[in-house]
């Protein structure tokens, strides 16, 4: 599962076509496009808009799932040639001076760069860095919903000291993103694979909810049950999460005790060990 956050319709168009996304939903003024495991939201320009759109998209993630996030767009750069694709290894909000460092785990050929988010378009390119208007809004919000390894910013250089941003048009934005599609697609696939692994590791036992629906578990007991179900999944991967006679238990505490005793009997430890000291 991946969420793409894009500022402009002109930047989104090639992605919508590439991933055959359809835009049936408009929420809070943002149009959301989807197909299979890919969602795309057009935020409009600026970090506040980007943060709002990111939060809105996050609201649609099923509980317990972790999506990958990719902010895609154009950016200025002091010296990089237009059309150059960049992945942000550092994002700095110029207004606050705060920086974030998206972990770089993926084995991709895309060059990485410092990305500075500005509130108004940058024309002087003071630092040897890329300049955009969204990343510092997108990144900290997306990082609240997913681990930072799954959250990245991908930019295509649209302007530099030689070629002013004033000459940019919607058509040229679309052309730039289209030219970067191969790199973007590699990034999308790699991030989706990472998110898939992450979700697979953290998926609860498939039959956990079935038990939860049969007895009343307090919040604390629910945690205990989740932990027992985790152990069950590892120790008894091919056995259903059930024991003979469990249906006769009237209280959740008794269910937990049965499951715990069954699992403890499979693993080391003298019988006299006090049950309440067990983890």
């Amino acid at each position, binding site marked *: 599962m991946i969420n793409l956050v894009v500022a402009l319709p002109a930047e989104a168009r090639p992605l919508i076509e590439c991933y055959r996304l359809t835009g049936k939903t408009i929420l809070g003024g943002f149009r959301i496009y989807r197909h299979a495991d890919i969602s795309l939201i057009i935020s409009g320009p600026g970090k506040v808009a980007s943060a709002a759109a990111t939060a809105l998209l996050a609201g649609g993630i099923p509980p317990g799932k972790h999506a990958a996030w990719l902010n895609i767009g154009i950016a200025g750069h002091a010296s990089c040639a237009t059309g150059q694709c960049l992945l942000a*290894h*550092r994002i700095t909000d110029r207004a606050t001076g705060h*920086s*974030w*460092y998206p*972990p*770089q*785990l*993926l*084995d991709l050929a895309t060059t*990485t760069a*410092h990305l500075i988010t500005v509130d108004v378009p940058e024309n002087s390119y003071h630092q040897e860095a890329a300049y955009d208007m969204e990343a510092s809004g997108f990144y900290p919000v997306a*990082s*609240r919903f*997913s*681990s*930072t*390894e*799954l959250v990245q910013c991908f930019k295509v250089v649209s302007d530099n000291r030689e070629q002013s941003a004033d000459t940019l048009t919607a058509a040229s934005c679309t052309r730039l993103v289209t030219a970067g599609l191969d790199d973007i697609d590699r990034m999308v696939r790699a991030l989706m694979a*990472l998110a898939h*692994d*992450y979700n697979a*590791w*953290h998926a609860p036992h498939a039959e956990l909810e079935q038990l939860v629906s049969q007895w009343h578990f307090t919040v604390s007991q629910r945690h205990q049950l989740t932990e027992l179900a*985790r*152990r069950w*999944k*590892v*120790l008894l991967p091919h056995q259903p999460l059930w024991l003979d006679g469990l249906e006769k238990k009237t209280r959740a505490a008794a269910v937990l005790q049965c499951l715990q005793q069954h*699992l*403890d009997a499979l*693993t*080391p*430890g*003298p019988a*006299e*060990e006090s049950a309440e*000291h*067990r*983890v």
Partner: protein
Amino acid sequence: MFNHIYIEKQVAEHPRTQAVCARFPKATRVECDRYGEVFNPNAQDFRLQKRRPSLILAHKHHGRVLKTPDGYGLGGHRNYYFSHLLNCLYDCRYCFLQGMYRSAHYVLYVNYEDFGADIDARLVEAGNEVCWFFSGYDCDSLAMEPVSAFVEHFLPFFSQRPLAHIELRTKSTQIRSLLKRTPIPNAVIAFSFTPEEIYRALEHKVPTLERRLQAMLQLQQAGWRLGLRFDPLIYQPGYQAHYRRLFQQLFSQLNSEQLHSVSLGPFRLPRDFFRNIVQLYPDEPLFAGSFSDTRGMISYPQGLEQEMTAFCSRELLQHIPESLLFPCTLAT
């Protein structure tokens, strides 16, 4: 080895920073104000990062040389540890580092001279008493030697301070920098082992038992004092046969009369670390067993822990005199 090297502004011009960067000319250098900006943020996943950790070069400001927990040591009264490096090249599933740090990036503190000054300060406090300094607590002492040049710097330092004893604890075979030096009597190179079955299941990226044993033999031949560490002891059904075989394999080739020390310790983790690790590796069989929680310390059930420690101690004493055996007795 590293695609990205994060460099604290403060150490950007440090000669050790320059030397490390020169080793990785293709790595992208990323400047940061403080390494904590990269290493400490909340929403990081150690397990994901372990796939491709980056290197962070930083300055260690405080807490460079710390007292070891009670019960940790090799018979000395003054025991300290210091960590020039956070995190380990290897990926042992039982390692507490996974539960302690949010990030799997390696943090290399380049201000070795400040560590040296703090060690000297401890020695002054100790007067004429021997002090032990353990270096492999938050990292493997030797595994990153080609990058860190830690041994290169600290062995000459310790060679001039006979009352300062250093333990280099490792699972590595990076012994070149040791072999090219004259052994010093106040350094112990301690190798950690678990039985082959545990190694295969839990010690990812670690050199094979045979390669480590070969490294030990080379060092022993060169005259270095060696230690053996069986810490943590890991349970598996049939652990008795596994550990017995391991001990036989090691002691049949090593000259036990030339060993400095053998220590063993049970598998124990602070509760918070254990929880963090289980969250990272919910699918790991090691953590699906039953454990005891005694005052915030997670361990095998007491009876099993005692049984394993007693068994391994008995077996070890068939190969070494009691004076060399140091069971780790961390308070719980």
